């Protein structure tokens, strides 16, 4: 009843906002705080528990050539092993440098003019090194793609002519699996990027450029749509004010396209992350994908559990990347309601 009177009282004002507020309030009144807590925390927890149970029961029934399919317990165990291995490798590395420094110090003490140098540590990358490599690669690829795609999106959205020019190219390349690009990218990079003292490894460039190639399209398309579908009334406002082109673009067109732009960026980053793992597997470029592939080739009894750790970590990182974009969007976009799950 109370809800009903408030509804009438507020109907007059901003309906959309009030509607949302009232839905929130009325659901609160009906079900109470406890029920919402159960919904927010209890249900997801129960679902995860159920998933883990099903996983352990069903995994026990599958026998592979590498032994039984690992359940959650085995995977957890291997996750800890991976952490230990990483710490061990770090300790080894620290010791390696320490030895060199000591040796050099002794050399210099004996002969101040002695030529000393520190040789870099060349141990195999650990799981965590591979995560870092993948993150740097995806960030690089995504950044390059965004720097290219946003301006192209803006100009194609604003000019019919440029849209007509770019559209066939975008439509043709958009559906191409980026993995099809990989051989071409590899060959082009080998041919073009020749340097005695390369700043980046070729494998890094290959992966990053492949990520770039697939991150371009969603951002271009969404930016262009955002820019070209500015509310007609707002355009009329700018016409009545006789805003110059640049002011119109900066004050009206771009801000109104920001939500769509972020949608494109989020899609791009998600796709980029997925593609990167596949590219790393396929091209044997360092990163999480290579870790998975190496474990697969390795074929020890722990390999499947270690791969599953990688799978979970890949999923978790993908999730964190998406949330990160969402936070950025919240910070930069005016349209707080446009943020979806």
């Amino acid at each position, binding site marked *: 009843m109370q809800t009903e009177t408030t509804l009438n009282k507020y109907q007059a004002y901003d309906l959309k906002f009030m509607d949302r507020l009232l839905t929130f309030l009325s659901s609160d009144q009906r079900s109470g705080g406890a029920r919402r807590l159960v919904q927010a925390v209890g249900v997801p927890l129960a679902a995860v528990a159920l998933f883990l149970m099903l996983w352990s029961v069903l995994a026990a029934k599958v026998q592979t050539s590498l032994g039984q399919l690992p359940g959650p317990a085995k995977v957890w165990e291997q996750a800890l092993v991976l952490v230990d291995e990483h710490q061990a490798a770090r300790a080894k590395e620290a010791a390696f440098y320490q030895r060199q420094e000591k040796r050099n110090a002794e050399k210099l003490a004996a002969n101040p003019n002695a030529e000393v140098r520190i040789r870099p540590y060349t141990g195999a990358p650990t799981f965590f090194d591979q995560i870092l490599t993948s993150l740097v690669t995806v960030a690089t690829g995504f950044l390059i793609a965004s720097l290219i795609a946003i301006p192209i999106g803006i100009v194609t959205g604003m000019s019919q002519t440029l849209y007509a020019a770019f559209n066939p190219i975008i439509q043709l390349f958009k559906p191409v699996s980026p993995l099809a690009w990989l051989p071409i990218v590899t060959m082009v990079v080998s041919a073009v990027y020749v340097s005695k003292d390369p700043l980046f490894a070729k494998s890094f460039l290959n992966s990053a450029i492949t990520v770039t190639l697939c991150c371009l399209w969603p951002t271009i398309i969404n930016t262009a749509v955002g820019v070209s579908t500015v509310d007609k009334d*707002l355009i009329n*406002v700018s016409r*009545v*004010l006789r805003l110059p082109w640049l002011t119109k673009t900066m004050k009206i067109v771009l*801000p109104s396209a920001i939500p769509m732009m972020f949608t494109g960026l989020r899609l791009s980053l998600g796709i980029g992350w997925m593609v990167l793992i596949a590219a790393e597997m396929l091209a044997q470029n360092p990163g999480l994908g290579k870790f998975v592939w190496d474990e697969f080739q390795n074929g020890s009894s722990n390999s499947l559990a270690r791969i599953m750790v990688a799978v979970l970590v890949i999923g978790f990182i993908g999730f964190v990347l998406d949330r990160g974009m969402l936070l950025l969007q919240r910070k930069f976009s005016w349209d*707080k309601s446009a943020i979806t799950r």
Partner: protein
Amino acid sequence: MNDKCHLELTHVNIDFPTDTGPFRALEDVSLKIDKGEFITLIGHSGCGKSTVLNIVAGLHRATAGGVILNGREVVEPGPERAVVFQNHSLLPWLSTYENVELGVKQVFKGKKSRAEMRDWIEHNLELVHMSHARDKRPDEISGGMKQRVGIARALAMQPEVLLMDEPFGALDALTRAHLQDSLMEIHASLGNTVIMITHDVDEAVLLSDRIVMMTNGPAATIGEVLHIQLERPRERLALADDARYNHYRSNVLKFLYERQKRPEESGEADDAAAPGTDDPREDVKPENIALRVVGS
């Protein structure tokens, strides 16, 4: 040419292109408006009221005829003909102050100093009683408040003509009455020429010097013009018992519901005379054409 005439619409026709050929939304709309006059346009949905307003604003070009403001033809939109849009059309990413500022900066660039502009923006927000919300974004204020800011933005451009497209259409009765009073105050003190579209007969009689009643489309035109000779300032409570007020009111009602009665009272349809909806040529279809053989 008559020097006294401030704003003149002469034989305005407008055709919108449709798949079945041009659709005539307005035909032969002629109106002379004096400086400082308050005109309301009233008529059923789809009769082209908004189209008239958009032509004066310069957002649409008349197919034939034209609009003259102070002896110059209106060919494009401009800040001397400020528009208050039906759905306020504030930029959602700017605060109340910044929304008004956008127009002020454009109109007074090089004419006012930065401090003068700030004072002017604040003065206009004060005029519509919105100073308290100067830093709020449009989604943080109510519909009535947004409409006030829309009016402040228009007023701050110091327009000669204020064009209002159903500015209070989406508001509740109380807010609406309040804004009508504010508008009368502002009009009395600034003396802008106002053309306002409304669906509300009481609003039209209360505010106007003249009510322009439009016939139904297609090819809508001005059906009747009613002079409201009530002295200002007007007081809505006193007028409620005023015989002249009720006479004007019933005149408008009669025009709308007897002379221009529509078979379907839609009321919700788009005012922009949606092309094709009332097209009489739709009746001309192959199955409706009978061939008669004459002679044999």
